[in-house]
């Protein structure tokens, strides 16, 4: 077994994991069920989290390799009572259907907007290229990221409501 310390959504968390345990399994065991398990092989992006500010597919990250790292999940970004502007934009734009991909999508959007505050459509597509949605066809998702960018820049209110 390996002792690992993570800063999970701002909280220092110590845990003991199997040497080949994946971060996704650790996070869900710690109660972070907002991190979804889809394909389990790094293809669908529903398990995406930010590890030290970078988007990763947590199903193919060894937990032991993340030791000392800072992890942000969708629940750490915002909650139903106090959502982050990206999360509000997803709701208002109609970018959420079944919702399974949404935690990963909002984190991919967060990783992008942290670095590129006013992305164009191509930049959004590239940033979200590892997150599959099987419901919407991405149009509303891209709208949501654009309106979140505007809201975060203080430019206007979300226009889709």
């Amino acid at each position, binding site marked *: 077994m390996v002792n690992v310390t993570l800063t999970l959504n701002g909280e220092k968390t110590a845990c003991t994991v199997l*040497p*080949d345990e994946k971060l996704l399994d650790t996070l869900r065991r710690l109660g972070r069920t907002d991190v979804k398990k889809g394909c389990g092989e*790094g293809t669908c992006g529903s398990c995406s989290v930010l590890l030290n500010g970078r988007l990763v597919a947590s199903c193919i*990250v*060894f937990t032991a390799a993340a030791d000392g790292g800072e992890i942000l999940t969708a629940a750490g970004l915002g909650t139903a009572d106090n959502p982050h502007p990206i999360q509000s934009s997803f709701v208002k734009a109609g970018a959420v259907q079944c919702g399974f991909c949404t935690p990963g999508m909002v984190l991919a959007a967060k990783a992008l907007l942290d670095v590129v505050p006013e992305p164009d459509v191509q930049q959004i597509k590239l940033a979200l*290229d*590892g997150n599959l949605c099987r419901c919407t066809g991405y149009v509303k998702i891209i709208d949501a990221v654009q309106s979140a960018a505007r809201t975060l820049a203080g430019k206007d209110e979300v226009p889709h409501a």
Partner: protein
Amino acid sequence: MGRIQHYERPQKLDEALRILAERKGKACVLAGGTSLALRLPPGVDTLVDISRIGLTGLEDRGDSLAIRACTTVAQLAAMPQSRQLYGGLLARAALCVASTPLRNQITVGGNLVQVMPWSDLPGVMLALDGQIVIQGPSPRIVPLRDFYAAHPRNSLSAGDLVTEVRIPKPVGRVQSSFVKVGKTAFDYAGLTVTVVAWLSGNEVRKCSVALGAVRPLPVRIPQAEEEIVGRIPTRDDMIRAAARAAGVLEPSLDFRYSKDYRRQLIKVWVKRCLHEALA
């Protein structure tokens, strides 16, 4: 899960090499982990995490640029050197690898050593005459041309650790092109083509044509290169080079692309890449 008993996190290269030597054959090098998370080699009970031994970033080696093994594909894509050298070839290819989360995880060393048939960087590095630097019981520098004569999984021995890949700095005027052909942006490549042309005036004095994803390992196509070298290539030269490239290889079986279709892809894309590089 369950087969792995030990997780080692060395802080220095020497320490990593010592662990690999001691646990000969039972220890496996872990970098980005995207391959090992899905499949561990048989007989392995120890993971040696090399992400904290200073193997990240670029270093100037005089006539070559060293890309350290643990540099992620995303880091490579963002580096000013990879955006500038060879017309930005390295950055362009790096951005074609997999998806955003995977580019943040996959390392350059891992991509070159694990080398799946569809891996994007090996063909590019092969076209650039890259060299692999291996530390371990017998430290050595191996040209990628030789490194990819057999699968690195078989030719690297227990105790070997790839620490960097060296890319020669361009000499004179050099132009390049790269394409990844897939069904979607995040699809495995059905074909990658890299063309690099070293020019003197308008004459091509040296040319690399490398294909990825058509065979288990990336390949150079000397038959196509020789149609281009020593000339100011015309459209006909390029068409002839592309036709020879399509003719010399037996594409691997692939459920998405028939052999004939892939030969057709090679013919079209080698021509277009030559045209782009030499335009």
